[in-house]
């Protein structure tokens, strides 16, 4: 006689079939979420992410990197190389895969357990088959999928933030590197002027026309100019290496050449009127905070509706320690509402919801302030750079012309002429720095509108720390 297990088992089988169906829905997307990240990045940086190349180096990627590095590198080219080549960003993008795997996993119920026992004795054999289901898991599938979907969305936002930040940092590094190289070149001219003075002084001393004191003064100036040149050259190297790190280049790739000069100032500065509303629409950290609030709202709704589902920890952002990798996660707990009808849970859920609402408001307020500050920096640097270009440099040019006229009239000597040449070079260098500062401020403004307000701002923002686990992808300045 064979005894079969009872009908609940059959029901469970039916449920299992349903679960399998559900599980089938939660399959991996073909792009692993990269399309969305690429679209967000592209909308904010003008550069998309190369999807296929994100996972492994392809010949095409390397060919493009080589092509970009082969010609004098532009700011956009540098950003492109960084987006293609920066391993930190790749690591961040790999995080997408982790999140998606979690999402898929959440849609699948745990494999049912099968038990089989056969007992014989007394001429009778009893075979017992058992199918075991993770009933709790089954019940929580919709909840888990919902949560994981949001987490996946959050991961996409975080990855896009990383990409946008990397793009911004790379642009800044490019401007720094070009300006530093230009400054080093001018430092060389200063040294040349100083050397000419010193050489002339030496020859004057040899001809008996210059005292040892005056001769030494000219020599020490030249010697100082040499030291200054060494510093300027190191600055240029350091700025270039910073760019190389962000682009993730090494070996022969580091032989890239930069454009010789910074781009000209735009004819007019951009209008600052709509930057705040733009930031509200486009900032990824604000969107992330909103997503977080939505998640807690959902959890609150669940808690209110059932009283025995606790997803209160979902979406909770652990902000405990800076420096240490941040963790976020959730916990679902089904409880039997025997002694506690969930009043406390609902209260806690409400409190957590309010917390995330405040965090979102905080993120938005901070973002607005950051973008205002960034616009002020942008505008000031634009005006300064234009002031240098239109006022200071032409005035210095006029001074140099007039100085030469005075030299022509033997009203001043050659040393004064050379001192003026040095002053002119110094002012030109300051003008280049003003131009560089403008472009960096421009990039920072873009970051404040589009990304997360730049590296420094991100560190100060609580909400954007959702991206904390991949912060290492974007080295801080």
């Amino acid at each position, binding site marked *: 006689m064979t005894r079969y297990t009872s009908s609940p088992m059959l029901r469970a089988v039916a449920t299992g079939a349903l679960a399998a169906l559900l599980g089938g829905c939660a399959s991996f997307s073909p792009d692993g979420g990269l399309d969305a990240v690429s679209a967000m990045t592209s909308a904010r940086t003008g550069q998309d992410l190369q999807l296929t190349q994100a996972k492994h180096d392809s010949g095409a990627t390397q060919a493009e990197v080589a092509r970009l590095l082969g010609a004098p590198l532009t700011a956009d080219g540098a950003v492109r190389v960084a987006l293609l080549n920066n391993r930190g960003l790749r690591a961040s993008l790999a995080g997408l895969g982790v999140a998606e795997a979690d999402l898929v996993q959440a849609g699948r119920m745990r494999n049912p357990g099968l038990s089989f026992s056969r007992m014989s004795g007394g001429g009778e054999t009893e075979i017992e088959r058992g199918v075991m289901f993770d009933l709790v898991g089954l019940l929580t599938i919709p909840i888990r999928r919902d949560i994981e979907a949001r987490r996946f969305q959050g991961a996409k936002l975080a990855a896009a933030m990383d990409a946008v930040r990397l793009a911004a940092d790379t642009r800044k590094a490019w401007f720094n590197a070009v300006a530093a190289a230009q400054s080093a070149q001018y430092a060389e001219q200063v040294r*040349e*002027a100083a050397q000419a003075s010193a*050489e002339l002084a030496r020859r004057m001393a040899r*001809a008996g026309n210059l005292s040892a004191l005056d001769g030494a003064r000219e020599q020490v100036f030249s010697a100082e100019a040499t030291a200054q040149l060494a510093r300027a050259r190191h600055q240029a190297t350091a700025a270039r290496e910073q760019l190389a790190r962000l682009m993730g280049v090494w070996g022969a790739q580091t032989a890239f050449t930069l454009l010789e000069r910074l781009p000209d100032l735009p004819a007019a500065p951009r209008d600052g009127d709509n930057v705040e509303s733009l930031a509200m629409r486009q900032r990824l950290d604000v969107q992330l905070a909103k997503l977080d609030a939505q998640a807690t709202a959902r959890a609150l709704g669940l808690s209110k509706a059932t009283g025995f589902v606790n997803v209160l920890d979902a979406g909770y952002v652990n902000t405990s320690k800076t420096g240490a990798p941040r963790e976020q996660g959730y916990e679902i707990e089904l409880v039997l509402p025997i002694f506690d009808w969930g009043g406390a849970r609902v209260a806690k859920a409400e409190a957590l919801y309010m917390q995330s609402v405040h965090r979102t408001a905080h993120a938005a307020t901070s973002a607005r302030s950051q973008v205002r500050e960034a616009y002020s920096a942008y505008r000031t640097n634009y005006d300064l750079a234009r002031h240098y270009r239109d006022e200071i440099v032409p005035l210095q040019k006029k001074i140099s012309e*007039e100085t*030469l006229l005075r030299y*022509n009239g*033997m*009203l001043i000597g050659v040393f004064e002429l050379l001192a003026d040449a040095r002053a002119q070079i110094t002012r030109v260098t300051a003008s280049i720095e003003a131009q560089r500062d403008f472009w960096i401020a421009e990039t920072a403004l873009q970051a404040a509108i589009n990304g997360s307000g730049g590296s420094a701002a991100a560190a100060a923002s609580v909400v954007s720390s959702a991206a904390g686990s991949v912060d290492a992808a974007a080295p801080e300045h």
Partner: protein
Amino acid sequence: MRSRRDFFTGAAALVGAGLVSRAGAATLPEAPIMSSAATQPPPPPPNGRPYNPVVTLNGWSLPWRMNNGVKEFHLIAEPVVREIAPGMKANLWGYNGQSPGPTIEVVEGDRVRIFVTNRLPEHTSIHWHGQRLPNGMDGVTGLTQPGIQPGKTFVYEFVARRPGTFMYHPHADEMVQMAMGMMGFWVTHPRNPAQHRVDRDFVFLLNAYDIDPGSYTPRVNEMLNFNLWTFNSRAFPGIDTMNVRRNDRVRIRVGNLTMTNHPIHVHGHEFEVTGTDGGWTRPESRWPEVTTDVAVGQMRAIEFIADEPGDWAFHCHKSHHTMNAMGHDVPNLIGVDHRGVAEKIARLVPDYMVMGDKGGSMGDMEMPLPDNTLPMMTGQGPFGGVEMGGMFTVLKVRKDQKPGDYSDPGWYRHPPGTLAYEWKGEPPAALRKQDAGGQSMPAANAPEVEVTVRKPTGHQGHH
């Protein structure tokens, strides 16, 4: 030039007193204005006692009005634009359109009434340097009179008692007002025109300004580092020449209102100092000279017979007074080898040109200068650059210069055999003395200084 004003045409063409009100015209003589910096030929006196007029180098004499036997002059102290030389103008303060102001010529014994209208932004006064006059007419603000406030007119009246050579200048805020060019010449002719009579009588003041190259207004706080040294506020080559007829008796009267002395030197002739601030020198006290030092605040009248035809230099013998603005701290590059360095400097300063390695002369270089700046040493003569500036002009002695004709006769044409010429033969080897000169006090330890002298070989290209 002040176009709003009419100006002289020819000798002593005068204009009306545009600045004096109709009501004041009844009592004030007209104040003629001069807008040209050219030397005005002397006008004969239209009334009053006769005299032989002087020629104010690059200047003019002030007309007067006779009023009941009193010679009335009207000076207007005012800002003016003076042409220092073609290519350079200066914002100065002066009188009646020019700085220095017009020469006042009177005759010994004349009663003189001078109206002084102040159109300056500050008070002024006029001191009649060297005159014997009532103390209250001496023009020292605070001491003998209150300052003439802007817009006010004061009257000075005295008898020109002593014949001779004088000046006038403010004795109010002197440092500023004289640095700005407020001064003028005064000649009191002897009652007898035959006394001290000469054929040509030139007058000018020595003045100095500090006008920064590229600017137009003198720095009024300068004490000694003036950069423009001028005769009547004109710098060579902007100064007129003194043109005389051969065998003319020539008098040149010089007054010094700078802050240093000026050894005035004439080429080709000896002269005698016939007059000083104190009057005419006695003939037995005179001795012949070719240079006379005119100290600060002094006047000198020198006289000579211009009997040597030619173009004779006439200048202050302080060499930096025959330069225009120059740098005091220009390094000495004489003998300094520029090879290699010049190219390096030219890379930084594209229009750079080596100067001074063979001396200060800029020769024929023509390089752009700051605005309103005269070249340091300039002026072209018949044989090239004269390499002079500032207190330098030329005495031109010609046999056919008509009496009363002060026009420029052009360059002197040297009779054959009277012009320096180049030796074409082989130069003999130089003989050098090897000892160190006088041995009365030989040095115990001669310092071992090795000085290398680089001599031009004649084949060095000009940089």
